[in-house]
C-alpha cells in the first residue's frame, strides 16, 4: 500500500488522531503525510517521527480558511503526482467533507467510520461498526485510489523516530473551490465540550437521589475534561437540562469514556451510549442491567465513590 495521510493541525501541533492514523498507515506500507494551511511547513516535519517517509505541505492562500473544497484540489493533484493508491483521513468535520469531495472528484471509493484497517492478501480491508454498533462489517474497495475515513482516536500515535523531507505541494485551484469564504472565526473555550463532542462523559440517573448530587458529577467531569449528561428520568424530573439527555429520545453519544452513575441501563438509555469506547458503571443495585454491558462495573455508593475518584484524578494532575 502506498498511502497519503491527511494530517490536520491546530495551535501549532499535528492532531493526535492524524498522527495515530499515520503510524497505522506506516505499519501497513508506505505512508506520506499531507499538511495543508497556515503554518503547514512548520509542523510538517514532525510527521517523519511518526512514520511518514515524505511529507507534502502547502500554505497556498486558498488553504488559509479551514474549508474543504480547495483541499480537494490539492489532494487530487497530489494523488496524480505521486500515484498513491490510498488516501486516509482521521474523521473530523473538515476531513469528512474533504474525503467525500475527493471521492467524487476521483470517482474513488470511500469507506467511512472505520475503526480498523488491515491488509489481507495484500488487499486493504476496513472494519466498521454498523446498526448502532451492534454489527461489525468488513468493507473493501474495488479500485484505486482507496479513500478511508477512520474514526478519530482509533489508533494511537507511535513515535518511530524517523525523519522525513518536507516537499512543497503545487496544485491548481478550481474555479468554484474558493467561492465559499470565511467571514468570521470564533474559538469556543472553557465552558467545556458539549456532550456530542466530549471525549469523556459523566452521566447521572435516578440513583443520584437528588438534583444536588449532579454537582459531584460536574466536579468529576471537570477533572477529566469532560461533559455531564443525564438520563430521561432525571431530565423529566427537572434535575438537569434536556440538552444533556442521552438516550432514545435524547442524544446519541460515542465518547471514549462514559461513566454512568446511578443509571440502571434500560435500553432506552443504552441505545444512546452503547457506542462509547469504555463504559464504567457505578450503581448500588447489583442487578442493574447496565452491568451487562459495561467494561467496569462497580457495585457501590456513588456518593462515596465519585468524590474520591475526583480527588484521585486531580492528584494525578
Amino acid at each position: 500500500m502506498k498511502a497519503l495521510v491527511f494530517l490536520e493541525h491546530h495551535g501549532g501541533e499535528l492532531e493526535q488522531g492524524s498522527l495515530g492514523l499515520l503510524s497505522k498507515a506506516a505499519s501497513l506500507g508506505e505512508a506520506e503525510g499531507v499538511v495543508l494551511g497556515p503554518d503547514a511547513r512548520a509542523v510538517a516535519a514532525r510527521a517523519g517521527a511518526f512514520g511518514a517517509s515524505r511529507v507534502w505541505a502547502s500554505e497556498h492562500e486558498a488553504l488559509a480558511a479551514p474549508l474543504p473544497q480547495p483541499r480537494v484540489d490539492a489532494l487530487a493533484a497530489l494523488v496524480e503526482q505521486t500515484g498513491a493508491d490510498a488516501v486516509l483521513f482521521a474523521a473530523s468535520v473538515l476531513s469528512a467533507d474533504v474525503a467525500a469531495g475527493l471521492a467524487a472528484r476521483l470517482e474513488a471509493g470511500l469507506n467511512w467510520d472505520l475503526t480498523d484497517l488491515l491488509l489481507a492478501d495484500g488487499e486493504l480491508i476496513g472494519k466498521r461498526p454498523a446498526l448502532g454498533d451492534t454489527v461489525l462489517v468488513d468493507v473493501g474497495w474495488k479500485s484505486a485510489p482507496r479513500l478511508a475515513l477512520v474514526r478519530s482516536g482509533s489508533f494511537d500515535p507511535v513515535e518511530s523516530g524517523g525523519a522525513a523531507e518536507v516537499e512543497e505541494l503545487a496544485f491548481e485551484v478550481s474555479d468554484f473551490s474558493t467561492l465559499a469564504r470565511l467571514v468570521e472565526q470564533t474559538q469556543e473555550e472553557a465552558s467545556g465540550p458539549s456532550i456530542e463532542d466530549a471525549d469523556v462523559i459523566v452521566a447521572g440517573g435516578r440513583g443520584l437521589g437528588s438534583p444536588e448530587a449532579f454537582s459531584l458529577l460536574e466536579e468529576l467531569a471537570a477533572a477529566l475534561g469532560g461533559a455531564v449528561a443525564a438520563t430521561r428520568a432525571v431530565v423529566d424530573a427537572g434535575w438537569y437540562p434536556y440538552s444533556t439527555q442521552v438516550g432514545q429520545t435524547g442524544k446519541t453519544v460515542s465518547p471514549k469514556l462514559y461513566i454512568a452513575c446511578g443509571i440502571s441501563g434500560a435500553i432506552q438509555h443504552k441505545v444512546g451510549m452503547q457506542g462509547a469506547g469504555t463504559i464504567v458503571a457505578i450503581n448500588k443495585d447489583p442487578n442493574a442491567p447496565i452491568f451487562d454491558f459495561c467494561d467496569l462495573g462497580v457495585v457501590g455508593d456513588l456518593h462515596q465513590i465519585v468524590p474520591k475518584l475526583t480527588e484521585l484524578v486531580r492528584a494525578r494532575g
Partner: protein
Amino acid sequence: MKIAVCVKQVPDATVHKRIDPETKRLDRSGEATLNPTDLNAVEEALRVKEAHGGEVVLVSMGPERALESLRKALAMGADRALLVADETAAGSDLVATSRVLAAALERVEADLVFFGQASSDGDGSVLWAAVADRLRRPLISQVAALTVEGGSVRGKRQTEHGYDVIAAPLPAVVAVSDAINEPRYPSLKGIMGAKAKPQETVSVADLGLPAEAVGEAGSRTVVLALGPPPARSGSVKIEDDGTAAEKIVAFLAERRLL
C-alpha cells in the same frame, strides 16, 4: 428562488434493523420513514421560501414507495417531489449515489440545495460534499444558523473548535445540522393537500446515466463480511470495599484514558 432538499427514506428506527446476510445490504423491506434529520433541512428550506418566495423541491433516490415518506415533507409545505426510483440504482455507494443525485439536481436547477445531517441508516456525513463537488458549487456544511441575502448565503458552521461564519454566492450547497431549527408539524390542511402535489418519478436512464454508472456496478466500495462486534473485552464487576475509586483509576490508567 428554487430550493432543492435532498431527502431519504430510511428503515423505521423500530427494533429490527438488520443487514441481509445474502446481499449484505441493510434490509429495507420493513416500514420506512423520512430520515429524521432531513426534516431539519426541509424546515430550513421552507423558512427560506417563506422569507424570499420561490418553491421547495424534494429530491430523493429510492424505491417507488419512498413517495409515501416524501408526502410528510410535502405536508409540511414543500411544493413538489422528484424521486429517482430505479431498481438498477439499488446498492449504490457514495460514488454512485452522488452521481445520481447530482444528475437529478441538475435537472431541477436549484439556487440552493439543502442536505440534512447524517442519516439514521448509516450514511455518514459525506453525501453533500460529494454532490457539491459534482455540481461544482460552493459548499457550507454543519450549518447551525443560516441567512440568505442578496444572492448569497451565510452559514454559521459548527466545528470541533468553535463556530466559523462562511459566506458563499448562490447557487450553493448547504448541509444543516439538527441544531438549526425545530421542524414544524404539518397542519391538517397540509396533510390533506400533500397527495395532490406534483410527484415525479424518473429512472436512471431519464437522467441520462447508463446502468453501469449506478448500483453495484457503479460503486467503488464493497461490503465483504458481517460479524458480531468485538465483545467488550473481559467485563469486570467489583464491589466497593472502600477502594473502588482507586481501582477505577487503575483501570482507566491501564487503558490510557487518564
